[in-house]
């Protein structure tokens, strides 16, 4: 049994998916976070079920990358049943996709998710009646609380076994006549690209001038293209609108009719959260609150981190003399053991104390639904660097980790915007680089100095954005972004998400850090580090840094936090300030923030923007890092 979850963005598909899969797909309260599909297998009534979580799809007629991906999946895989997830509080609009799915003639279940939110808004839905009209089972759920999910899958299972598609809902007569004439032609001719694509569905896509299907016909079958154009013109002439508008208006009217016959509107229950936007999106207070929220956020993260880092670091570094008492410090064994201890200690004491509160806070902001509000507030500013408001979403995620940030650039419409946003995302200090800023600069110099780095970073990003957009002078398409209702974050989901992101550090980065510091110990033991340091000495001298930090720069490409942890090891003390001056710490940190993205980022860039542009990004960020490093050296 193969079940696919499909629905409009932010309707709760991933939340339902996570319910059966464990927390595997990242959920947030903004439209478009699932950019590629996730699958899981689970047992349902002794039957193995494969569940696919497809990216949010407004419509099956689209130009959007993620949406096309979802449609391709639906058409090319043998899906037993589609679970169409709807945000019940947006029923009228969501039904338009449901109608398109019915056109596909696949067995289907409609899931009215967030039914509690709909009722709060005063929307009471007659589920029985809706099910009769559509000819498919309808189940209501509150996925965030897990309500109704079990029933949903049991109904989906039955529907999949019965293999019965829903009703074919017809448009108004004059339009339907043209549609059926074209479907009839499709039956006669061989212009069906796939044998099991329903004729009416194909006819509609042709009439809607859907790029993919029209291109297909253009290359394979010029004669039939003429026929399609004939019917398109027929619709346009009789309705005085583009043929795609005629079809989408038909669906719109049909869904409005269904909506009106199944919904009883009641008085909405207003709560405090409905008034939140009056301040958070206010044209003056909105910005004050944005500044305040960001300041509080970073301050809290630093406060918590510092409170834990200091005692923990002291405690763990006391282990080294302990080992020294038992093993001769000149032996290879000692080198290895002390390398392992330093790697372990660095992970526990330096990185985790900042990483956890940061990721936790970011998850809260995401689930609350604050990110789209930031996009609204900052749209005008982002236009100044040639992007639009939605670009703020990858940027915000970039403060967590650059890899998901680059994937999130897919929510931008134009290729140029995606490229610029990707390059700029690599310069945003991710959580790994944040730990460097906090644990080195804020800890040894001052929190103000750390703040200066963040401000400098923003300035550099703005200037780089200006440079890149003037090199690629294309107008960004305007922003179209849904601003979802606020959701009170569920502590369970927030913790699960924080854990999912921490796992990346614990299971991927940390072992790498331990291996890295052991390797450095070995290099030092065999005096090989001096060769590497010598090789990088032109760079370190230029930046005015101690020659021993050369090796750490190489390791920083593997993982950014690695360079800091190895710095401690390379200079031979955890009291960095006794060896490096404040200027050197500043220079080092600024250089590390900007120079060449880490290896995981390079890999994802390569896939998303191609090899040439990735190499450009590496060269671009490296030159910025060197320039800023040298400037810092002389002016700080």
């Amino acid at each position: 049994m193969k079940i696919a979850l499909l629905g409009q963005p932010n309707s709760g598909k991933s939340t339902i998916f996570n319910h059966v899969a464990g927390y595997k797909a990242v959920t947030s309260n903004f439209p478009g976070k699932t950019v590629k599909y996730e699958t899981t297998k689970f047992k349902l009534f002794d039957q193995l079920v494969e569940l696919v979580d497809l990216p949010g799809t407004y419509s099956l007629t689209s130009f959007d990358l993620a949406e096309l991906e979802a449609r391709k999946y639906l058409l090319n895989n043998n899906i037993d049943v589609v679970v169409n997830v709807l945000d019940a509080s947006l029923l009228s609009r969501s039904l338009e996709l449901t109608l398109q799915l019915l056109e596909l003639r696949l067995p289907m279940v409609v899931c009215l998710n967030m039914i509690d939110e709909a009722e709060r808004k005063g929307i009471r839905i007659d589920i029985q009646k809706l099910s009769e009209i559509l000819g498919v089972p309808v189940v209501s759920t509150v996925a965030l609380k897990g309500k109704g999910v079990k029933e949903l899958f049991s109904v989906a299972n039955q529907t999949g076994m019965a293999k019965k598609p829903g009703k074919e809902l017809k448009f108004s007569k004059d339009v339907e006549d043209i549609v059926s004439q074209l479907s009839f032609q499709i039956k006669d001719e061989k212009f069906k690209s796939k044998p099991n694509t329903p004729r009416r569905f194909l006819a509609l896509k042709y009439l809607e001038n859907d790029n993919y299907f029209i291109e297909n016909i253009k290359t394979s079958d010029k004669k039939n293209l003429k026929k399609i154009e004939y019917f398109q013109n027929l619709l346009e002439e009789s309705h005085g609108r583009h043929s795609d508008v005629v079809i989408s208006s038909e669906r719109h009217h049909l869904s409005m009719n269904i909506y009106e016959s199944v919904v009883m509107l009641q008085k909405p229950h207003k709560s405090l959260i409905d008034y939140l936007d009056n301040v958070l999106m206010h044209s003056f207070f909105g910005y004050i609150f944005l500044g305040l929220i960001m300041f509080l956020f970073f301050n809290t993260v630093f406060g918590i981190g510092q409170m834990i880092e200091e005692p923990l670091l002291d405690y763990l570094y006391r282990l080294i003399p302990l080992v020294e008492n038992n093993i001769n410090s000149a032996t290879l064994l000692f080198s290895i053991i002390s390398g392992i201890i330093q790697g372990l200690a660095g992970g526990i004491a330096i990185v985790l104390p900042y990483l956890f509160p940061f990721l936790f806070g970011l998850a809260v902001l995401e689930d609350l639904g604050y990110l789209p509000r930031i996009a609204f507030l900052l749209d005008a500013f982002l236009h100044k660097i040639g992007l639009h408001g939605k670009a703020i979403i990858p940027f915000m995620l970039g403060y967590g980790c650059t890899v998901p940030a680059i994937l999130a650039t897919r929510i931008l419409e134009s290729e140029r915007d995606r490229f610029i946003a990707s390059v700029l995302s690599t310069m945003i200090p991710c959580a790994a680089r944040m730990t460097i800023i906090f644990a080195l600069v804020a800890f040894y110099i001052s929190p103000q100095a750390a703040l200066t780095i963040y401000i400098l970073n923003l300035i550099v990003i703005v200037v780089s954005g200006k440079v890149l957009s003037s090199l690629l002078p294309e107008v960004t398409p305007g922003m179209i972004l849904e601003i979802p209702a606020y959701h009170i974050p569920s502590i369970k989901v927030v913790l699960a998400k924080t854990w999912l992101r921490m796992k990346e550090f614990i299971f991927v980065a940390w072992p790498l850090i331990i291996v890295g510091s052991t390797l450095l110990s070995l290099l030092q033991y065999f005096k090989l580090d001096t060769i590497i340091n010598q090789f990088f000495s032109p760079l370190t001298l230029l930046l005015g840094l101690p020659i021993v930090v050369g090796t750490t720069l190489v390791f920083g490409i593997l993982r950014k936090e690695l360079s800091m942890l190895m710095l401690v090891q390379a200079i031979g003390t955890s009291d960095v300030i006794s060896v490096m001056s404040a200027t050197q710490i500043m220079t080092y940190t600024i250089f590390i923030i900007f120079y060449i993205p880490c290896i995981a980022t390079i890999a994802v860039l390569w896939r998303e923007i191609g090899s040439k542009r990735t190499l450009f990004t590496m060269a671009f960020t490296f030159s910025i890092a060197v320039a800023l490093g040298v400037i810092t050296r002389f002016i700080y």
Partner: protein
Amino acid sequence: MTMTLDAIKENQKVKVIRVSGGWGIRQRLGCLGIHPGDMITIKKSAIMRGPILINIHGNQVALGRGIASRIFVEVIV
């Protein structure tokens, strides 16, 4: 009188007359429930020619000025 959506003041209610623009914009706006004949309330207008926030079929949508200027509407009094 027909105006473009970006010229409408906060808290006014309008009816969509038509959307001028290519296939992509028509489709995307249609998906969000913006078709000729639909009612829109303008909730907020950001500073510095920033986006406008509208209420459409009980949902909030932010539209950049450029997009808003392609939506022709009629003010409902």
